[in-house]
């Protein structure tokens, strides 16, 4: 949902009261997703934050070889399927690149993990990781992708891959495509009204009888509240 729709909803919602938005520009357009990394975070930034984001965005952490390895891996972790795109299609590698600079304490582990891929590829197949076939890649990934059954000598690799999996998922599900796949429909003004009755029924749950009369009624949201001296709403 873009900003313009947000505002429209705000103004046309069922609440006809006190809503005011000074200084908003309804014409402002939401950024296209692939333009993400051309600028820093939008909204309420301090000068220091702006400068820091720009500095991070103007540096490069990963080498081309590392990016290639990462691209292979993130698409294995979050591949394309019938409902959703592959991780590389929605900027996950760029996201990880940024996070390395934003949280530099993770750089060494990430770089070490990517380097380890070449050691492993060399020992197993006599090649560099980027020259492996897909099935060879999977053989290496399988050594570190399953924490509960991985061999003890791969513990470090497992930890690295856990971190990579987490980062990949963060970068994947924090996109419009990720929201769509997840079915997330929140953060829309004036859209919430409790649990839908059919959901309550399906879960066999009921609201507490004694509170029914007290819960907010949507039609009251335009009326200024007033109380009697005992604190009862009138």
């Amino acid at each position, binding site marked *: 949902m873009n900003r313009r729709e*947000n505002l429209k909803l*705000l103004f046309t919602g069922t*609440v006809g*009261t*006190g809503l005011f938005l*000074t200084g*908003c520009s309804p014409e402002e357009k*939401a950024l296209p997703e692939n333009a993400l990394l051309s600028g*820093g975070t*939008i*909204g*309420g930034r*301090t000068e*220091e934050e702006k400068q820091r984001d720009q500095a991070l*965005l103007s540096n490069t952490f990963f080498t081309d070889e590392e990016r290639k390895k990462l691209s292979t891996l993130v698409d294995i*972790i*979050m591949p394309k399927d019938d409902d959703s795109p592959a991780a590389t299609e929605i900027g996950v590698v760029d996201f990880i690149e940024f996070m390395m600079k934003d949280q530099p304490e993770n750089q060494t582990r990430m770089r070490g993990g990517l380097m380890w891929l070449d050691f492993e590829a060399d020992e197993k197949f006599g090649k560099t990781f980027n020259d492996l076939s897909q099935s060879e890649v999977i053989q290496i*990934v399988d050594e570190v*992708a*399953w*924490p*509960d059954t991985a061999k003890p000598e791969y513990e470090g690799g*497992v930890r690295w*891959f*856990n971190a990579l*999996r*987490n980062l990949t*998922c*963060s970068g*994947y*599900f*924090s*996109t*419009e495509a990720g929201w769509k796949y*997840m*079915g*997330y429909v*929140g*953060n829309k*003004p004036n*859209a*919430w009204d*409790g*649990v839908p009755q059919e*959901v*309550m029924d399906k*879960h066999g749950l009921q609201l*507490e009888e004694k*509170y029914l009369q*007290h*819960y*907010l009624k949507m039609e*009251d*949201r*335009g*009326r200024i*509240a007033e*109380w009697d001296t005992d*604190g*009862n709403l009138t």
Partner: protein
Amino acid sequence: MSFQIKSSGDTYDVIIVGSGAGGGMASKILSEAGLSVAVIEAGGDFDPAKEEDRTQLRPPWESPRRGAGTQIRPFGDFDAAIGGWEIDGEPYTRKGDSEFDWFRSRMVGGRTNHWGRISLRFGPNDFKRASIDGLGDDWPIGYDDVKPYYDKVDKLIGVYGTKEGIYNEPDGFFLPPPKPRLHEIYLKKGTTAASIPMIPSRLSILTRPINKERGACFFCRQCNRACQVYADFSAGTCLVHPAMKQGKVDLYTHSMVRKVTSDDSGKATGVSFVNVKDMKEYKLKSNVVVLGASACETSRIMLNSKSKMHPNGIGNSSGVLGHYLHDSTGASRSGIIPDMMGRERYNEDGTGGMHVYTPWWLDNKKLDFARGYHIEYGGGMGQPSYGAGGNMDSMRKYITDEFGQPSPNGGYGVGLKKDIRQIYGSTVGMSGRGESVPRFDNYCEIDPTVVDKFGIPVLRFNYKWTDQEINQAKHMQDTFEEILTGAGAQLLGTKPGADTMYGLLAPGRIIHEVGTARMGNDPKTSVLNSNSQAHDCKNLFVVDAGSFVSQADKNPTWTILALSWRTSDFIVSELKKKNI
């Protein structure tokens, strides 16, 4: 910003240091009484209704870090509060193996831009704990002294909730509460099974409007980002800016107060501060000085305000200033409710916080710790952003297929993606927030060896939890397991044990620090009198939580607001009588 240099000849009626809950309320009440007021704020101005300040309703892809926390916004890139646990150039230190983490917000509205809007009144017992359990001290005032101000705060600021008739959880003037969310109804099964109460929460979010200046909540669940229609409370939107609009209020931003100045008689004459932008010192004069910089920052300013008449810092003849520092206790646990896996999708936002909570329900006489705690609940289909789909290396095993076969932890691929979709919205969590026992030995003091970048000596913290708090945390963990199990949840992680003090967080982490300039009737054992007026300096007042004698198992904001209003009324009355 709105920084303006005053000619030194001008004298304000009142200077207020800090623009959070305490300073904000004082600015409104004192200016409405016709007084000329200067509000001094260390950070910048902030107004979420201005498009350039808005973070509300922004999707994670408008942040290159997808909403991940940063040093100056540890609670997320879109969190409204600017500052954090560590601020460059503004250090604090800890003595020995003491733990204390200090969260500061440098902006108009202070930490009210961040908090969970949980707005609980202290009850009659909360002002008289020493009489009940023999520990610490009673407040010099009681619930009846504060009740009229709680009532006024309810009406001025707005809080939703329900009248429950619980003695120590006094009812107020409530707006209608929102209905509970699905996970909250599940958790209610757990509290019912454990015979623990769960009632609609009490949050300062306008489910209905209370005036024409502020809009009603439109349910985006992002109060922590500050609301562009002012439907939630923050001191900037609800107090400071309205006061500036209506009264004689000058706001000095980017102004770090160094000390309270005083004359030869010991009377406060104003403040000295450093302009953060030009790094020069300025002085302002006033007839009254009101400190609302936060419990610790206020005591820092007072300790640094040394003079011939106040050799230990202004208002510190007792030596108590900085002592009795205490924060709420905190511990938490989470679980996963299998019946909520793969559930229907719908907008589950509601207001920016929990819709239900558990007030303290037991009698401490039968327990091995003296003070209670309340329980806050979390969960639901939150906005997927940084962290989404995480921890599948340990959580994926809770997902079972149609044959009841659990998924393997970790992995990759289409199966992992589906499992993440399946588990989304099925985890729940809860946190205890409890009362600690105030101790003289827990304190902040001036570190004699360290100054900040403004040249102002910094605070050094000395703080240790005792068995009171540790036993309370143990009780929390037992309770959490009981509730989660009763709700049909599988427990996540392992139960925190004695080695981690039962998951008890470091002091300061709950951001409820109070007590450093406590009130009392005896000037030898307290800094302020019952009107929050310094015993040693009649025209110096404290309106933040520094004045608290004990912190209760509640969040402090509503009491800060009520007491600040009460103190402001007292200041007006004393000025009229020419007593100050």
